[in-house]
């Protein structure tokens, strides 16, 4: 293998699994260290700058960081990154002083932002400090988008939502709530310099099976139901409820139904349980509240008796996997589940009936707008998409990432610059050596299991929609959990000319990831290591040839970043260096803490 080019920031960035996996590349290990130091406000700000909604995301993020977390490969469970983020939000105190200044003299550019969800709010936040005049249109009476309408308040309290949404609106965004855009053409005629469309994927999928029309009064689309509950239009539901669908919306539906007084709630899924789309932790939460998950149940008919819904007929399915592709095969066995109400959470779709098809904005064969992956711009210059509106349902953190990119593009567009001239990320690599065997980070491996988050008493939380189920870590629990972070951003940096091949690093490495061996092609080299490197998603760090002609090969997969290689190295050929990576944004004023951190 060719020697690894560590001057390419991509290499070390990828080693920081959590940050690499996060769509907004939040510097996770750094904010966890800040929490460890009790610097909650600083930890919050690093999050806020990067992902805009730390309090919200600390509760309901899809957390792509956690499955990626190296800790989850070393032992069973990843660091509770998401819940630690919430700690920063819960304990931050007053942070108003850290907010970017908003120029009173505007730059003369007017931006229309449609929808008040996470993508739109991110665009507004990134552009306001630059002096843009942002006009936000939202059909609902309040901001937040699906964070308000589709996430029940027992998972995301209103006060948290109001605070973080309000902070952005407080930058002086001109808001027009209750204003539904009916025609993009008309809006474009108003002479905005750019338009951002962040209207989400608002249409819940329906199920056209017998009985659907006759029982319509008792069959509800999941996200519409959740919205009605959020805006307090719905207060009750039948005693027996069947939820159809296996995603996170289904989990929210069943738990909401319980809180509206349903006594017998079941979730039914077509696929086997292991293929369910819902996050494991959301399934766990539903089951903890006593909701059974019935898998392999394919709905065939809504049974109507006396003009009312009496139950749902299912056919049991069986899954077969051919070449990794799943096929659901009907078994012929039928099951009837009696119920009073059905909640359907089988997916969401985009809908753009309000975008005219003759304004130079192209749609693809699935009636989705053609949007550039990098710039977020549609085929009509000046019109940008983001969040679920761009490519269908994703999650909040992706919407925020889209918002950042769209804001950069809008800024470039408004200044007549090419959208391809995107600002580069900032990076740095600095030794963390403080003295002999002393490092600036906690390198001692903490042999701790993931700390469980305390929950509210179920008797109480099940009766009240507004009682938050998770209580969050207190400072003591957080202080324990932070120690589980392996500080993967503190990199093992190898300086070949200093190496005397004494084997000390190889001998001390607790996870046997360092090797001195003959070089070869990657597949052979991976096999030839002390412990074969079978996780192909993790890179090998390969040095140039050493004096004996061998090379140093480090499998990054399970490195604990404990620094013992550097401590046992007699010549300083190994050093622990903190790698910082700061994703560029439209406004440097929104990166003050990041810029302090990268220095």
């Amino acid at each position, binding site marked *: 293998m060719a020697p690894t080019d560590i001057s390419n920031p991509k290499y070390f960035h990828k080693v920081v699994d959590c940050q690499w996996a996060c769509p907004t590349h939040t510097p996770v290990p750094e904010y966890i260290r800040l929490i460890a130091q009790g610097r909650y406000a600083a930890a919050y700000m690093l999050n806020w700058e990067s992902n805009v909604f730390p309090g919200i995301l600390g509760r309901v993020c899809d957390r792509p960081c956690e499955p990626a977390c190296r800790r989850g490969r070393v032992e069973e469970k990843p660091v509770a990154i998401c819940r630690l983020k919430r700690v920063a939000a819960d304990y931050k105190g007053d942070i108003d002083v850290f907010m970017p200044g908003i120029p009173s003299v505007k730059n003369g550019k007017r931006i229309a932002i449609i929808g008040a969800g996470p993508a739109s709010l991110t665009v507004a936040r990134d552009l306001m400090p630059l002096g843009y005049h942002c006009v936000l249109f939202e059909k609902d009476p309040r901001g937040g988008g699906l964070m308000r309408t589709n996430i029940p308040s027992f998972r995301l309290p209103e006060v948290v939502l109001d605070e973080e949404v309000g902070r952005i609106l407080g930058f002086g965004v001109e808001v027009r709530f209750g204003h539904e855009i009916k025609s993009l053409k008309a809006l474009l005629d108003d002479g905005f310099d750019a338009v951002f469309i962040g209207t989400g994927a608002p249409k819940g999928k329906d199920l056209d099976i017998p009985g659907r029309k006759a029982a319509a009064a008792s069959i509800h689309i999941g996200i519409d139901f959740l919205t009605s509950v959020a805006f307090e239009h719905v207060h009750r539901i039948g005693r027996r409820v069947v939820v159809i669908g296996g995603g996170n919306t289904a989990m929210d539906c069943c738990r909401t139904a319980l809180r509206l007084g349903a006594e017998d709630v079941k979730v039914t899924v077509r696929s086997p349980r292991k293929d369910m789309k819902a996050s494991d932790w959301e399934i766990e939460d539903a089951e903890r509240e006593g909701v059974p998950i019935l898998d392999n149940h394919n709905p065939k008919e809504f049974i109507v008796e006396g003009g009312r819904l009496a139950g749902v007929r299912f056919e049991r399915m069986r899954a077969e996997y051919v070449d990794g592709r799943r096929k659901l095969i009907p078994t012929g066995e039928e099951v009837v589940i009696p119920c009073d109400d059905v909640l359907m959470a089988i997916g969401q779709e985009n809908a753009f009936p309000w975008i005219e098809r003759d304004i130079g904005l192209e749609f693809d064969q699935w009636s989705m707008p053609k949007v550039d992956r990098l710039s977020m711009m549609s085929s009509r210059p000046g019109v940008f998409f983001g969040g679920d509106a761009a490519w269908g349902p994703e999650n909040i953190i992706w919407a925020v990432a889209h918002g950042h990119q769209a804001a950069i593009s809008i800024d470039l567009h408004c200044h007549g610059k090419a959208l391809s001239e995107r600002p580069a990320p900032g990076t740095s690599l600095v030794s963390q050596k403080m003295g002999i065997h002393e490092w600036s980070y906690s390198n*001692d*491996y903490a042999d701790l299991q993931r700390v469980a988050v305390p929950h509210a008493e179920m008797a109480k939380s099940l009766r009240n929609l507004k009682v938050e189920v998770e209580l969050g870590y207190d400072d003591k629990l957080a202080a324990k959990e932070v120690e589980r972070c392996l500080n993967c951003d503190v990199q093992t940096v190898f300086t070949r000319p200093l190496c005397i*091949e004494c084997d000390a690093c190889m001998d001390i490495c607790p996870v*046997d990831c360092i090797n001195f061996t003959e070089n070869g092609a990657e597949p052979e080299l991976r096999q030839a290591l002390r412990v074969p490197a*079978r996780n192909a998603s993790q890179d090998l760090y390969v040095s140039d040839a050493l004096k004996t002609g061998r090379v140093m090969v480090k499998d990054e997969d399970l490195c604990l970043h404990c620094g013992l290689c550097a401590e*046992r190295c007699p010549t300083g050929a190994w050093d622990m260096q903190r790698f910082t990576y700061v994703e560029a944004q439209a406004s440097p004023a929104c990166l003050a803490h990041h810029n302090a951190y990268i220095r």
Partner: protein
Amino acid sequence: MSYIQKPVAYHPALKKNALGLTHRDYEGAMSTLCAGCGHDSITAAIIEACFELDLPAHRVAKISGIGCSSKAPTYFLGRSHGFNSVHGRMPSVTTGANLANRELVYLGVSGDGDTASIGLGQFAHVVRRRLNMIYVVMNNGCYGLTKGQFSATNDRTSPSKKGDPNPFDPIDLCQMAIQLGAGFVARSFSGDKRQLIPLIKAAIGYRGFAFLDVISPCVTFNNHPASTKSYDYVRAHNQAIDKLDFVPEESEITTDYDEGTSVAVTLHDGSRLMLHKLDQSHDPRDADAALMTIRRRAAEGEVATGLLYVDENQQDLHDVIGTSPRPLNAIPMAELCPGSAKLESINARLR
């Protein structure tokens, strides 16, 4: 030395041996030796060898004298028996332990000071008595624990770190061991685990006196450019005379060995040493030839390493003096101590 302990976490795909243990289970406490010390590499090689041999840790006794080398047993086989004894007196303590319980594997760890200076007399006699043990010398040519003075194994051509010349010729412990009757004599280098691990395994498999002289650079005092015990020098002058495979009893020989260049040595327990000869003039079963090889190579400025000499028929101390086949702790008390009356009768017989 590091302030933290070695993390308990280990690679989940780590190989397990017949006892269901990983090599991490054969570790000891965190080393307090200097970073980069060759002794730590030898430690790692011992751990690997014991792991590969499926040795239960409680069947091993590690015994040492005084010095950096003699601290090392703390850093491996944390679940074995151990005795960190008096300077140069490791052989006596090992002899005593071995006579009391012949069923353990005795791993003596010593250094060039502990063996070639203060312990030279003890060394000579334990070899002569053919005690069934593995005697490892971690040889760095200096007294690392007392700031790097020359030891008795330092080459005459090798000055101190400051440049002071060494006025005396070295003691070659391998030559001495062969002359004194050791049945298994090998030399290796801490920086060459591929050679060292099979040698340690073979030494453990050998019944009789097995001597291993391992050149182990002292990174702090004797790893300078003029030293002949530095990593660079030993790498440049290391002449392996053979390549050893240790094939434990009951295992099949899977590699092809060319009869002209290979020697198979069968040990007492049926395990075999497959030696691939790199130096055709060398026959490891011939003590005179072994001495010649060492001396000739040394004269050429090279360090001959590998299995230098092996006597497949050596009798160990127990065989020679005809001790009880059972360890003392397995003999019933009444038999072990027959009482005053029996003593009386023995005494009476001798009057």
